[in-house]
C-alpha cells in the first residue's frame, strides 16, 4: 500500500488569520493526505523542527502579514542547512507577483497560491511535485 503524503501546514509570523490555513488543511485531508497542523505564530525554527521531526513530504505555509520576504527564505535556508532540501515548500497568502517570482526563483518556494486559488489546484500541485523519496539508510 502506498503511504499517504504527509504535509505540515503552518502559519509563520504574527498575523492571526488562520481560516485559509484551516480550509487548506481540511482539503488536503479530504484528498487523503496526513496533515500536521501546528497553528498560529510559528517561527521559522519551529516550522523546520516540526517538519523534520514529522518527516513530512511537503510544507504548506500560509502568510498574510506581509513579512513573507523575510520569513519564507529563512525557512528554506534552514531546511537546506538541516538536510531537508528535498521537502517541497509551497506558500499561500497575500503575495505580490513580483515577490512570488523572487520566492520561486531565488528562495526555493516551489508553488505560490494567492487568494482565489482552487484547493484542487493546490492538491494537484503537491501530488505532482512532491518527492516520494524512498527511505534509504
Amino acid at each position, binding site marked *: 500500500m502506498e503511504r*499517504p503524503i504527509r504535509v505540515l501546514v503552518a502559519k509563520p509570523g504574527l498575523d492571526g488569520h488562520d481560516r485559509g490555513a484551516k480550509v487548506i488543511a481540511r482539503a488536503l485531508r479530504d484528498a487523503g493526505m496526513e*496533515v500536521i497542523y*501546528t*497553528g498560529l505564530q510559528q517561527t521559522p*525554527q*519551529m516550522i523546520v523542527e516540526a517538519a*523534520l521531526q514529522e518527516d513530512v513530504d511537503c510544507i504548506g505555509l500560509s502568510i498574510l502579514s506581509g513579512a513573507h520576504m523575510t520569513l519564507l527564505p529563512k525557512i528554506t535556508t534552514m531546511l537546506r542547512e538541516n538536510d531537508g532540501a528535498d521537502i517541497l515548500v509551497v506558500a499561500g497568502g497575500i503575495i505580490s507577483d513580483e515577490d512570488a517570482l523572487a520566492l520561486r526563483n531565488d528562495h526555493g518556494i516551489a508553488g505560490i497560491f494567492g487568494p482565489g486559488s482552487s484547493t484542487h489546484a493546490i492538491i494537484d500541485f503537491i501530488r505532482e511535485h512532491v518527492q516520494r523519496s524512498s*527511505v534509504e539508510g
Partner: protein
Amino acid sequence: MELVAKARAGNRRALARLITLVEAGDAQAQTALAALYPYTGNAHIVGVTGAPGTGKSTLVTQLALHWRSLGRTVAVLAVDPTSPFSGGAILGDRIRMQSLGGDSGCYIRSMASRGSLGGLSRATGDAVKVLDAAGFDIVIVETVGAGQAEVEIAREAHSVVVVEVPGMGDDIQAIKAGILEIADVFVVNKADREGVERTVRQLQMMLHLGSGEHRDGWEPPIVQTVSNTGKNIAEAAAAVERHFEHLKSNNLLELRERERIEREWKMIMRERLLRQLLQRLEPQQYEHLLNQMAERQLDPYAAAKQAIETVLELS
C-alpha cells in the same frame, strides 16, 4: 543498518525516517526493526488516553516539560484517527505542544491511525521500538480513548494514565467507556472547574465497586491537575513513576513485557499465516468458496475449514 546507527547517535532526521519506514511496515521495515531490536527494552512507556477535549495534549506537554526539567529525555507519539472516508487525517496535537520545541532532548511525532485495529497497534508498537532504541528515557503514547483500537494501544504501555474531566456524563458512562480497568493512574484534569469533587468521588467509588483486588496489587491513585497552569503536574508525574517502580520492584515489569511480546508474536504469526494461506489458495477455489457463502450454501466456518485443509494437503 546505517539509519539505525545514525538515529542512535542522535540524528533526528534519521530517527524521523526510521519511524516513517517502520510505519509503512514493508520488508525494509523488518530489516530496520531487526537492527533496532537489541537496543529496545530500556524506556519507560507511558500511555495517556481519555475522551476528546479532556486536555490530554496539554497534560502530555506538561509531563514532558516536568521530566525534561529533571534531565530525562522524552519522546511523544501522538496518535489521531484517520478519516475512514478519504484515508487522510488532520493531526493537531502539536498545537498544544509548542513549549516542547527547540529542545534536542525532546521529540514529538504525530501518527495517523491508518485503518485497521491490528495495523494501528503494530505501527505504534514499532514506532515505540524506534524511540526506545534511540535512547529516550520516557516514551509517551497519547491516544484518544474513544475506540477499542486506541484503548488497546494504551494497554501496551507500562503505565497507563486515564484522563477525566469534571462534568462528562454520569458514572455509568465511565464504566461503559471501558477505559477505567486499564488505568494505572487517574488524572482528573481541569480540576479548577465545578464538579471536580463529584468526579473524584465517582472514580473512587468505581474503583471500589470491583472485587476489591486491584490488578498487580496496585491501587490507581487519583490526581487532580490543571494542565493549563501546571498545577499538580509534579504529583501526576510522581504517581506515574511510582507505578513504574512498583512494577519493577515486584518483577511485574518482566511479566508484563513477556505477555506483551507474546501477544505481538502471535499477532505477527496470525498475519503471516493468513497471507501465506491466501497465497497458496487457488484463485478459482477462493472465488468458489466466497460465492458459496454469498449464496448461503456454505457457512464461513465450513469454508475456512475447507480452505485450510486444502492448503495443508498441498504443502
